[in-house]
């Protein structure tokens, strides 16, 4: 297998801005197929902006985003989703007034075949038994942990090539955080889903990923594998 085939997502020299205020500056991220990669950074460092740029919700001023060998820089969001990117995040929450099952069906929006959909739903029910018990409940009545599970399940139902997780541990109890990261590891190891994990909880994030990037003030200040990152002085920075 050549390098190009292994490369799933390639963001190079990306610049974005909110109005006149520059946000990301010369950000380059490479994700190989099957890897779990974490993006760490403090509040306001530009992590979420990077996610939005990859999803196409923030316009790239400069640079390119290449996914599966295609230049998707100018694509709109729905096209990127159909190409196999999915996001599970606290920010793009669940539909609180709809039932859990409706939420899952909305996640499977791009699956047209009812038989395939039934199969996938069944898989989801076995891997997320918590949700099966609550199918007819409104998503707004779920606990925080269950809602995070729902967000992940909703993304995984499509069998995405790339799963972006934006702060899955946000606002959860430590025991639930452990459960969430167990799921992340399982998705990566057993289901071979490439995962981009955007987190503040550096210790936890590093425990499940094999490469990492650190963003500070809109720039990548470190990139490398987890072992180097664990020992680097960047993590000792009190801001992290």
């Amino acid at each position, binding site marked *: 297998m050549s390098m190009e085939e292994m490369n799933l997502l390639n963001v190079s020299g990306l610049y974005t801005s909110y109005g006149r205020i520059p946000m990301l500056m010369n950000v380059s991220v490479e994700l190989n197929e099957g890897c779990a990669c974490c993006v760490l950074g403090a509040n306001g460092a530009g992590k979420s902006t990077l996610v939005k740029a990859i999803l196409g919700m923030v316009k790239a001023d400069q640079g390119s985003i290449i996914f599966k060998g295609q230049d998707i820089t100018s694509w709109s969001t729905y096209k990127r989703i159909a190409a196999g990117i999915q996001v599970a995040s606290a920010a*793009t929450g*669940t539909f609180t007034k*709809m039932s859990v099952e409706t939420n899952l069906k909305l*996640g499977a929006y791009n699956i047209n075949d009812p*038989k395939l959909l039934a199969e996938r*739903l069944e898989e989801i029910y076995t891997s997320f038994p918590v949700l099966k018990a609550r199918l*007819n409940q*409104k998503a707004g009545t779920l606990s925080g942990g269950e809602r995070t599970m729902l967000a992940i399940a909703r993304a995984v139902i499509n069998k995405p090539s790339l799963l972006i997780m934006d702060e899955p541990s946000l606002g959860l109890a430590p025991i639930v955080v452990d459960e969430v990261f167990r799921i992340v590891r399982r998705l990566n190891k057993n289901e071979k889903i490439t995962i981009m994990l955007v987190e503040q909880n550096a210790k936890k994030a590093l425990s499940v990923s094999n490469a990492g990037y650190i963003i500070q003030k809109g720039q990548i200040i470190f990139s490398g594998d987890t072992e180097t990152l664990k020992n680097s002085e960047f993590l000792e920075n009190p801001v992290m």
Partner: protein
Amino acid sequence: MKSFAKKLNTPWVIVLCNFVIAALVHAILIAEFAVSLGLMVAVVIVMLALDRYGIIHALFEAYTAQKKTAIISGIFLVIAIPISLTNNNYIGHIATMAVIYSIACLGLNFQMGSTDMTNFAPAAFMGIGAYSVAICTTMFNTSPWVGMLLGMVVAGAFGFIIGLPTLKTKGYYLSLVTMAVQIAFTQLIYNLPAIGGANGISGVPKYALFGLDLYKKYTIAGIKFAPQIPYLLLCIAFLILATFVAMRVYHSRTGLSLNAIAQDEIAANCLGVHVPRQKLFAFVIGGVFCGLAGSLFVGLDSYAGPGSYNFSKSLMLICMVILGGMDNSIGIIVGAFLLTIISEKLRDFADFQQLVYGLILVIMLIVRPNGIIPKRVRNYCGVSCRRPMCAAKAADVVEESSTGA
């Protein structure tokens, strides 16, 4: 409670229920102003009381389970009501108007109820339908049916054109844009002498089907019928068609994605919903429905004038949707009927008409902000399951479908 819900689930209950509804509609239409108003208030109160005990929900489940019986008996009664009005011109007129407004409200609901984009210009869309019939028939001597088709197409295109700029705006600002469109439409009609200006276009020919006039006094088996009755039957046929389409859209993936946009546009976008296309769809199909309603409206009065399609008419349609219940086709038809009948029976007190609207709206928003029959939580039961079941059974059905797959 569950056993009671099961008891409701028999064909006879459905037929009886349909009959009671039909009798009530007949009584409300026929009765004097005070009696009719009292009946309406009583119906609404009884319905709210029933809803508190979950009986309305159980009835809905029963109706979905006994679909065939419900539809067949319903259609019989729906045809029976106009015939039972016999020689009553005025009541026939009111009933036809209520049916036409119901169609327009169903169209408005695609934007307002499903997608949460309050459109303040449904009357403008109706006006387009009405004027296209009037222009086609009086100036080009075509059949009104051609005008109706053209009206629907033009109203749909108009919806598309309004939809395009409003993709950029949300919430209040979108409402402001549509409000401006409505006012501009009325002013345009007033100031275009070519299409009658303030006088409008009168003498529009009535609809006819296979050489049979649909607006004429018929005497069948010695009973005289008001001229509106055959036309009312035509409008009811269109209403059934419109309700069918609206329900199909609601239960489709498109309807689901519209609801998703209403709740959280960003999340819907992240799940791969093509947001601009779905919003435009809501505007176009809503426009087509309103255009149809307008072209039927002109067949009732033989007159298309700017006064009939102004801002206050738009407000009335919005009131109907809010009163009946957003995003629930049945609720919307109930709302349209109630408000049409109330405002028509209030003709004697025309000065107080607007006051009564305001009062109804304020009371509704305090007592029951989701409308008389609010929208129900979407409920699926596995994907391969064809017949809808009640919520309690859904878990079993999922297992069934899983072993099947």
